């Protein structure tokens, strides 16, 4: 019975099926609203889904220079780790697998999809991929510092409700928010929330921080030699990652909202995810250009880390 419940969690909700559907929907409304912002009609909201299925129908060409097993296996490892991440984040009170210290687990699990793209790109043996790998890794180095500062700040804030003084568990953060109101409404959390809004597009690889996968400059970077089903899985991972990151934002800053009806809670959470996507990804994409890699690194380690550090200090001194 427990095994069946776990299988449902893994494969249907909030696992593979739910994340895929909702992730692709988020990617779709991102493109549609972007088009509307640019005074165009834009593709239908189902477009990423069409893209995914079309790619499954294409031939997979494996270049001679590529390390075969890594090349083929990398997309699936990225997808699997994203699904595992989703299972650790509470959606409207449902958390498939909880532990006591899951923030650290999520932090590390979130690097695995980027790592999968990097190793897949490396394995394809193309020099464009080499450059893309370098830039993607610099992107990871950029956002990890603010992200850990944000997580420590939220952990300290939520830990006030428990005797440890700090907490790493998303479940406990949700409980704290259910008792004291969403974290975003504390003064000390506002810099952290703004920092998180910058971290999200960098992690997802959306403009203006998509230098790792710069489309025309380095011919799609690590994905240059991918075609067919592996590419489809990478695009799906990209969509699911949007979902996971916005869900993490919701869990950290706007959790604890409960109206009593489960389906309504889930809808509210999904709505917040959509709004966050529009604010930090679509809006930024529409009005800015792509940052160069050293500019991005400097931005994250000075301004964004500074905001998150400000939040940590404010929480520490008790505001």
């Amino acid at each position: 019975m427990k095994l069946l419940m776990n299988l449902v969690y893994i494969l249907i909700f909030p696992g593979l099926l739910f994340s895929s559907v909702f992730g692709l929907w988020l990617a779709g409304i991102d493109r549609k609203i972007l088009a509307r912002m640019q005074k165009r009609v834009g593709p239908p909201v189902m477009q990423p889904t069409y893209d995914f299925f079309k790619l499954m129908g294409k031939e997979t060409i494996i270049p001679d220079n590529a390390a075969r097993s890594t090349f083929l296996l990398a997309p699936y490892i990225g997808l699997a780790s994203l699904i595992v991440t989703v299972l650790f984040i509470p959606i409207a009170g449902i958390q498939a697998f909880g532990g006591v210290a899951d923030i650290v687990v999520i932090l590390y699990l979130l690097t695995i999809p980027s790592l999968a793209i990097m190793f897949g790109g490396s394995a394809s043996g193309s020099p464009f991929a080499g450059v893309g790998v370098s830039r993607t890794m610099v992107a990871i180095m950029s956002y990890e510092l603010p992200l850990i500062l944000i997580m420590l700040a939220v952990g300290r804030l939520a830990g006030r409700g428990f005797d440890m003084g700090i907490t790493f568990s998303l479940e406990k953060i949700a409980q704290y928010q259910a008792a004291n109101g969403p974290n975003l409404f504390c003064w000390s959390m506002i810099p952290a929330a703004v920092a998180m809004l910058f971290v999200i597009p960098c992690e997802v690889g959306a403009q203006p921080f998509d230098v790792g996968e710069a489309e025309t400059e380095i011919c799609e970077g690590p994905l240059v030699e991918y075609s067919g089903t592996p590419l489809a899985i990478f695009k799906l991972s990209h969509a699911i990652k949007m979902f996971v990151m916005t869900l993490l934002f919701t869990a950290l800053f706007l959790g604890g909202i409960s109206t009593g009806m489960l389906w309504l809670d889930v809808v509210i959470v999904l709505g917040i995810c959509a709004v966050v996507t529009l604010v930090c990804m679509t809006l930024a994409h529409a009005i800015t250009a792509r940052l160069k890699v050293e500019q991005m690194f400097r931005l994250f380690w000075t301004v964004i880390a500074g905001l998150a550090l400000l939040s940590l200090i404010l929480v520490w001194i008790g505001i």
Partner: protein
Amino acid sequence: MIQHFPILSIMVLFLGAFLVVLVGRSRIARTAVVSAAVLTSFALMVALIKPVMIDGQIISYWMGNWAPVSGYAIGIGIEVDALSLFFGLLVSLAVMLSGFYSFKYITQDDSPDLFFTLYLMLAGGVMGIVLSGDLFNIFVMLEVMTFAAVALTAFRSWNPNAREAAFKYLVVGSLGSTFVLLGTALVYGQCHTLNLAQISGLLSVNGINPTMTFAFALLFTGFGVKAFMTPFHPIAADAHAAAPSSVSVLISGVFTKTGVYGIIRVSYFLFKSMGMSSMQTGLVFIGCVSMFVCVTMALNQHDFKRLLAFHSISQIGYILTSLGLCSAIGIAGGLYHAINHTLFKGLLFLTAGAVLYATGTTKLEKLGGLARRMPQTAALFMVGAFSISGIPPFNGFVSKWMIYQAAYEKAAETGSIGYAFVTVIAVVTSVLTLASFVKVGQSVFFGELPVELENVKETPLSMRIPMWIMAALCLLTGVLPGLMQQYIINPAVRATLDYKGYIDAMMGEGYAAAHLADTVPLAEAKYTFAGAWDPAFWLVLFVIVLLGVTVAMMIGKSGRGAATAIADDKHDTFFGGEKNTFSQVGGGDLFWGFKYNFRRYLNVMGNAHSGVVNDYVTWGVIDLALIIVYCFIFM
């Protein structure tokens, strides 16, 4: 019977060394002697797990049966508690696996009999340090170990880098040994005994007077030199790069741990000074500096083994930081990271050795695309790289998690935000470690294969087997941390915090109670690890998801078998329409954005690591002076 096991475990290695000198010419005899020696040593250590770790016994043994006379210890004592056994297991495991690897590896060099003699002497010396209960005995074994390591570094004497590295190692290593000797002499002058347990008991009675503070600073720095803490780390880079790979495994995995072991014995047992917050801050500071400086230096390196060496010291920085926190979970995290480090760093050095064996070079610019010719070595490298970066489900993740939790809990406990920054530095170092290994992966194993390396072959089987064993252990210790903690780590943590038991076991019951005045209390030996998380379970989950998704792989068409195919345009790399020429993006060109932003800092660091041994000795002495001043102010 079991009280003879520790001394036998040391002696069998030395005996093996002497026998190899006699029969070394014959390959079969040499292999047999070495295998027997390392296997016996390991087996004896494993046999001690049940009595020492599970039942909590402490084995004490007086050499030559020279028991204490009228309350003073005059003989050399061997005392094995759970902490010593922990390090003993770690050492004998690394020695055994690296020894088996060496059989084939050393065929590319000459005088293999001399190699194994020195190897077994090094192993015996290290075992002697971790199992010994006598301060001067530790010093003697330290010297045996240092000289064997120096000789092994210079083993490839045709290489001028090796000779230079060995010289630097000799000078700075001797500096460390001198500090330890001075400290020992001072302690002997004060306590009139050399037995660790008795010194521990007496020092609390006499109190910490200025002579003893000076001795503490000397001993601490001396063992710190052996552990390659900053600023003694540059010689480690040279030594690791020049030594044969199986020796690098020992230097990084085992040698440095003796330094850590020495620091634990000195701080936690002899002087019991770890309870003071000033000492904790000091050690945590040294650890953090080690971590960060070495990982940023590593990003600049062009040689595979030098890069691994810098990472080695960075991970030792993690262990020192965690031990400096002086809480049960901190010590547990530090010890867990110690054994994980031996495993994954050993695996990485063995992989580097395999690459050197197959291609003859470890320079990142000359390598590339080896994953197609050496797929198993590439897979083993990836296991090692993921472990050191702390990616679940491998072992690095568990120990790093414990260290973050320990640091942040300390921050909450003391209310000081400084420890929160320790957590942040630890995480950032972890990410930079990951960056380094992505760089190595891209430069060495992936990317394009240069024409000169078209014919390299996969690593020989006898070299691959120890690597697979290490990789399997990396995965197991990551997936089953509960078992590891219950049987191996927790007894060692309890032993670290229980110096009274240590004293009593050696000097007889009641000695501790009679002599110990009130000292600064250390931490409680209980902790709740944030592991209500059952990793074996979600590894299964991971596999299920992976399987479920791999089914979708059947839908698309799969490519052709590249091994037998004729090169054609369709399967060539996309190059903007041009024919594919060799243009590997090598290690030196990666991470430009990071290097550009840190260019001033990296310049300063690069110039500081000048390679001149006089500079290193100067820093060492200045560092000793600073530590002495710090100890006098705060102790």
